[in-house]
């Protein structure tokens, strides 16, 4: 019990020490994310229409179509589409899809990237060289183009759906985890405690799984939240270009692409609402990522704020509490001001 408590307190420490700004960022970001989780998984049970419903049963065996392109009113708060769908219902359905794809895509990229990075950094040698070159090539490639090509290729094997979309979106993230984890592993494996474990005769699996892994894994949460934000945008872009999931599944990007013809006749609500959902969710996740970054990597903000901004994966540094303290002492003026 007390051991668990000590661990929790240890995990909570960076949060307790963080600036107010980063806590506000995390709070707002978490709030928005929670809101969308509620919308996605409670919304469908509360709201009277579903995302793929175009008619209602007024009497047994008697159906009445929903109106076509009806402007927002009490019955349809966000209006209806050309295909007689209710826009609010589709935004709710889209939230469910976006969150599912996001979780799967990020998990996919993280699991593969982290394990390859661990193996590559720990083993070294030829495996390392091959993996590093391969990952660099994937990293240099325009991400959206890569996602388009992969979803195009996946379509030959599996039905376009949550899984194929997650695969196409997540593949792009593998190199990011790989780079950070590999570099971190390289430095951790030279640490005395790893040497000690090895000389005590610990199995390789134990060394990797217990000593290296838990030291390396701290850099992952920040990349994870930023990737989650990016995954929503990539999924929407894929959907917009027609490589997302199978219609008529509600998907924000696909819905915006369907709304293109409405815009020409001055209809705004079919394009507007799915876009608002994207902007809100991505903003929330970005704020969460920025806040976490401030808490977990306080060093980076002062030492390499520019470096982080230009897109280097964060977390290549050693972030012990001692260093954080040193940073706090050295830069008393700056703590938190960067992120107000």
């Amino acid at each position: 019990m007390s051991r668990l408590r000590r661990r929790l307190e240890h995990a909570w420490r960076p949060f307790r020490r963080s600036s107010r700004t980063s806590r506000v960022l995390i709070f707002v970001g978490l709030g928005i994310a929670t809101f969308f989780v509620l919308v996605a998984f409670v919304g469908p049970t509360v709201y009277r229409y579903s995302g793929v419903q175009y008619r209602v049963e007024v009497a047994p065996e008697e159906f009445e179509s929903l109106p076509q392109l009806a402007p927002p009113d009490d019955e349809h708060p966000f209006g209806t589409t050309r295909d007689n769908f209710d826009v609010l219902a589709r935004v709710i359905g889209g939230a469910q899809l976006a969150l599912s794809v996001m979780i799967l895509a990020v998990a996919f990229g993280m699991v593969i990237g982290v394990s390859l990075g661990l193996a590559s950094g720990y083993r070294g040698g030829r495996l390392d060289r091959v993996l590093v070159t391969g990952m660099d090539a994937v990293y240099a490639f325009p991400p959206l183009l890569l996602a388009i090509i992969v979803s195009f290729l996946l379509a030959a094997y599996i039905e376009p759906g949550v899984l194929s979309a997650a695969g196409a979106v997540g593949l792009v993230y593998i190199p990011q985890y790989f780079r950070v984890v590999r570099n971190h592993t390289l430095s951790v494996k030279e640490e005395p405690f790893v040497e000690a474990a090895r000389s005590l005769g610990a199995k390789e699996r134990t060394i990797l799984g217990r000593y290296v892994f838990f030291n390396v894994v701290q850099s992952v949460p920040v990349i994870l939240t930023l990737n989650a934000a990016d995954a929503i945008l990539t999924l929407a872009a894929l959907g917009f270009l027609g490589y997302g999931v199978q219609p008529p599944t509600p998907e924000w990007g696909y819905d915006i692409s369907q709304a293109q013809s409405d815009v020409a006749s001055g209809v705004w609500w079919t394009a507007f609402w799915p876009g608002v959902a994207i902007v809100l969710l991505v903003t929330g996740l970005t704020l969460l990522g920025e806040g976490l970054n401030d808490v977990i990597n306080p060093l980076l903000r002062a030492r390499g704020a520019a470096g982080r901004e230009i897109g280097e994966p964060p977390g290549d540094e050693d972030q012990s509490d001692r260093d954080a303290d040193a940073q706090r002492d050295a830069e008393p003026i700056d703590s938190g001001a960067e992120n107000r």
Partner: protein
Amino acid sequence: MEGSSLRRYLVVRVLLTLPMLLILLTLVFLLLRVAPGDPITASVGARLPPEEVQERRAALGFDDPLYVQYGRYLAGAVTGDFGNPVTDRRDVVEIVLDTAPATFELSVVGFLVAVIVGISVGAVAGRLRDTPFDVTGRLFGIVIYATPIFWIGLLAQLYFSVNLGWFPSSGRVGGFDAPQDITGFYVLDSIITGDWTALGSTLHHLVLPGVTLGLVIGGIFVRLVRVNMLQTLRADYVEAARARGVRERNVVFRHAFRNALVPIVTVMGLQLALLLGGAILTETVFSWPGLGTAIVEFIGSRDYPAVQGIVTFIAVVIAVISLLIDVVNGLVDPRVRY
């Protein structure tokens, strides 16, 4: 001494481009060859009798072992033969020459808008740190990052071309206004031929897609410029300039701003991949006949050779541009050496 180390840097950097290019090309080849079946069956298989499909497959070499195909692909890429689409009479080089100028023209305008927005907002936000202007500027950066480019494009179309009627919503140029085709760059062509109607129409069509693309990339520049501005404003030489009694305006613009620009220029060059992704989406929204539209169309018609050819071309461009960025860096900054 200085000259020889610079030369060594340039030579090594050029040589390093070759393996990078090889890896990129291999990636493209592998990606498009792990697909089951072959391009002929996929694109025209249903419409032709099986014998003819078989004949075409053999003629295009899809029955050869994979390493032979790989060798032929690399040889083609080196000699400038990027292959022949199944669904288009033009070869890939012709398609690229037809569409790339449109993409390039759009990207240049987008980049200009991004630089103007990014540098002005970012620099002022950095200077006026923690004022309402700064907060707004930073919020702008985050929200614009979170906004899908195609959505901004659609809203811009809705407001500025449908509601207000100020700008055309699609295409590169008005119906019969296209200039005589010399370079494929309409702005250049219309200036060369002195066709002012064409120039006016081209610029008019460039406004909405250019600003859309520029705003989104500009959001990233705002963050970048602001952070670099903050750092340089804290630097010792800025303090020294202030202490010498240099006027504040000169401190900001001469001393801080110019030095803040050095890292920014590098990073702007690195945004190429982002620019390309943005261009694909912007082109789709505004029916802009560029490279992005072409790729999306060929993917839609399952034309593997065309997709492979165009993507190979893009890979070559990426390798060359990253080489150029590093060369410029080496010339500008004497610390960059191997």
